[in-house]
């Protein structure tokens, strides 16, 4: 078991890297090299773990050499290794993209030096959550990635980001508190938080106690995964962050929640009475999410809503609780991580090229920049599930699994899934028609006839609670010099520029070229999403094996607990 030594590395290396890059914060070049090297290494390690987990079963490490209830296990089975590999590749590409974008995105005043360490902590947290072999370590993994995400989301501290960040942080702190409560309950009931031991002990619990534990854990993870009744925080907070940050959030963070739900449902609560509830929730998530997406007038927000909606597909697979359903869900997670990240990176390109991602302001992008059009079109069609693409294959796998189960609810979900797919197509087609097909003049003329939505809102937004009097600004009983306020305002973002694309083009205020270092990583990611179609057969075979492991439970449990004595 030599490769099992590698298991902690995807967590340790990024953490080490975070320290190193923090020390190198005055030397941006060295910092970049360090980050890229570490992320590339993690990707390679994840690939090795994947091969090894597939060939010789789950790889287990007991940290510090302590045994079962006290020790902390890290486990890389097929599912965890696959998630690890996909996330490592995606984070590497996003980081390369953000280097091209000028480190931190659109905001030049953002503290550049913290970006790399925070990003690495995020990667460490994600890896830790995927590898965690006990619930408390999962909690720690969540907290690591959440904390990094708090910082990345509010990077620069502009008005919009602080507003969005507030909601995000409060919701996630609440879910963390809920997680703590469930941990205490689990420990009180079972005397352990190790997943393998839990899976043996939960069976002996009275049914109602087990149900209570399951509900607590499911609610916690549903908040993280943005499953319907608990999804409202997501479209509100994600779109405000810089494009690469949104991309990595959308790709990974919710999927960590889905992964946790999947792990709980298969390993700890296999014969759960809640499968029906999960399927209802999945249906509502799909439909309500996509209806929200159709209504949006900003590409980033539209994509955030499709993100919520497509989480429903994964929960659908988990709710079916058959090998086929779980295999489909795992495949869909892998597909969706790459596709959603790719789309958000493209939106970053649109923002760079056209100054905005608002559909009211955009038009004629297909002529303005054919490269962006192609890069948007391929993953967008993939997201909607147009036949040759991996999105289609994943959906077919899930729908087939639903039909195999054949209960009325499962059939209803199949119908809902098809409907969601159609509405997704409608949402991306609408985006395509407005942003890429019509001319900027048309967009300008139509926008001019609309009531001025932005200005009213902006005025209302900023005027709140401020009284200007004799060069002083009185705010809630305190007076500032107006210069202080100017200083603060200067950092207030220009997220919603006054001019639309037509005016920007007329004034020649746009960069005429996109940096290749931004386009290239996006293109690579789009190629990877297309490649998923090519390797869909082997990948589905792999997820089938992973799903069999998960349903069987013994490979995981025995390899964790046998390792204990060593």
């Amino acid at each position, binding site marked *: 078991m030599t490769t099992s030594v590698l298991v902690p590395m995807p967590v340790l290396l990024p953490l080490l890297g975070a320290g190193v890059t923090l020390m190198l914060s005055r030397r941006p070049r060295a910092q970049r090299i360090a980050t890229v090297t570490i992320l590339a290494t993690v990707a390679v390690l994840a690939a090795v773990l994947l091969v090894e987990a597939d060939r010789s079963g789950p790889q287990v490490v007991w940290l510090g050499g302590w045994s079962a209830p*006290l020790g902390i296990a890290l486990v890389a089975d097929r599912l965890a290794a696959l998630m690890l590999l996909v996330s490592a590749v995606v984070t590497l590409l996003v980081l390369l993209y953000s280097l091209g974008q000028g480190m931190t995105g659109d905001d030049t005043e953002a503290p550049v030096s913290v970006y790399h360490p925070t990003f690495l902590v995020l990667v460490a947290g994600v890896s830790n959550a995927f590898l965690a072999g006990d619930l408390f370590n999962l909690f720690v993994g969540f907290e690591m990635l959440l904390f990094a995400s708090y910082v990345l989301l*509010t990077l620069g501290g502009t008005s919009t980001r602080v507003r969005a960040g507030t909601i995000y942080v409060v919701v996630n702190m609440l879910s963390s508190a809920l997680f*703590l409560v469930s941990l205490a309950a689990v*420990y009180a009931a079972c005397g352990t938080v190790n997943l393998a031991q839990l899976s043996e002990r939960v069976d002996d619990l009275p049914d109602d106690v087990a149900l209570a534990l399951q509900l607590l854990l499911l609610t916690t993870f549903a908040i993280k995964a943005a499953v319907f009744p608990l999804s409202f925080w997501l479209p509100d907070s994600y779109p405000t962050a810089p494009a690469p940050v949104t991309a990595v959030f959308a790709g990974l963070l919710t999927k960590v929640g889905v992964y946790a739900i999947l792990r709980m449902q298969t390993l700890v609560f296999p014969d759960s009475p809640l499968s029906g509830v999960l399927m209802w929730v999945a249906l509502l998530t799909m439909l309500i999410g996509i209806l929200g997406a159709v209504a949006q007038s900003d590409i980033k927000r539209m994509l955030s809503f499709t993100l919520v909606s497509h989480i429903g597909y994964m929960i659908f697979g988990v709710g079916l609780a058959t090998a086929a359903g779980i295999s489909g869900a795992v495949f869909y997670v892998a597909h969706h991580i790459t596709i959603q990240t790719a789309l958000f990176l493209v939106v970053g390109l649109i923002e760079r090229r056209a100054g905005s991602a608002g559909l009211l302001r955009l038009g004629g992008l297909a002529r303005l920049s054919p490269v962006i059009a192609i890069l948007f079109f391929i993953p967008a069609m993939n997201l909607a599930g147009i036949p040759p693409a991996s999105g289609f294959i994943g959906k077919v796998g899930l729908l087939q699994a639903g039909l195999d189960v054949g209960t009325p609810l499962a059939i209803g979900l199949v119908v809902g899934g098809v409907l969601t797919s159609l509405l997704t197509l409608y949402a991306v087609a609408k985006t395509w028609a407005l942003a890429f097909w019509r001319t900027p003049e048309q967009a300008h003329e139509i926008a001019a006839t*609309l*009531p001025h939505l932005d200005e009213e*809102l902006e005025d209302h937004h900023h005027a709140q609670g401020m009284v200007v009097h004799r060069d002083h600004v009185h705010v809630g009983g305190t007076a500032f010099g107006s210069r202080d306020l100017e200083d*603060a305002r200067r950092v207030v973002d220009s997220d919603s520029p006054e001019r639309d694309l037509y005016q920007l083009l007329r004034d020649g205020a746009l960069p005429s070229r996109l940096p290749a270092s931004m386009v290239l990583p996006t293109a690579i990611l789009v190629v990877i999403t297309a490649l998923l179609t090519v390797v869909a057969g082997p990948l589905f075979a792999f997820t089938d094996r992973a799903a069999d492991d998960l349903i069987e439970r013994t490979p995981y449990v025995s390899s964790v607990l046998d390792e204990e004595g060593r």
Partner: protein
Amino acid sequence: MDANLTLILTSSFLIGTGVYLILERSLTRVLIGLVLLSNGANLLFMVASGPAGDPPILSSGEPDDTGMADPLPQAMVLTAIVITLATTAFLLAMAYRSWQLHGNDDVQDDIEDAQIRRLAAADAASDSYDLTLEASAEDTATDEVYEEEGSES
């Protein structure tokens, strides 16, 4: 295992108060609510760890865990406390930044949401929003525009 009723009551009181405060709009109160909430959750670990016992220190020789307190929940609580501390510091910084920018630390409404509501209100075909907003009153756009808009919102 006997559960400690005092701890449970204290914990539920803290969590209840915390939830009440989280429902406030001011970020400072939300923050205090979250601190109370996580303290309540931490106390639950004390319930889970059972009655107090000897310090869980294994000296050389036989491990004797008969009268020993359970060390695991304490380790978890320590971790949780550290995490809460860090998050509290971060939220405080955000409340301060919010106050710098807006002069208050109220949690703001979503601007884009309001914008979409206005778009819908400006759309004559949509009767689902009978909001009496200024946008619909002063809207002088032509029918063609409504159609264009209808396809968008």
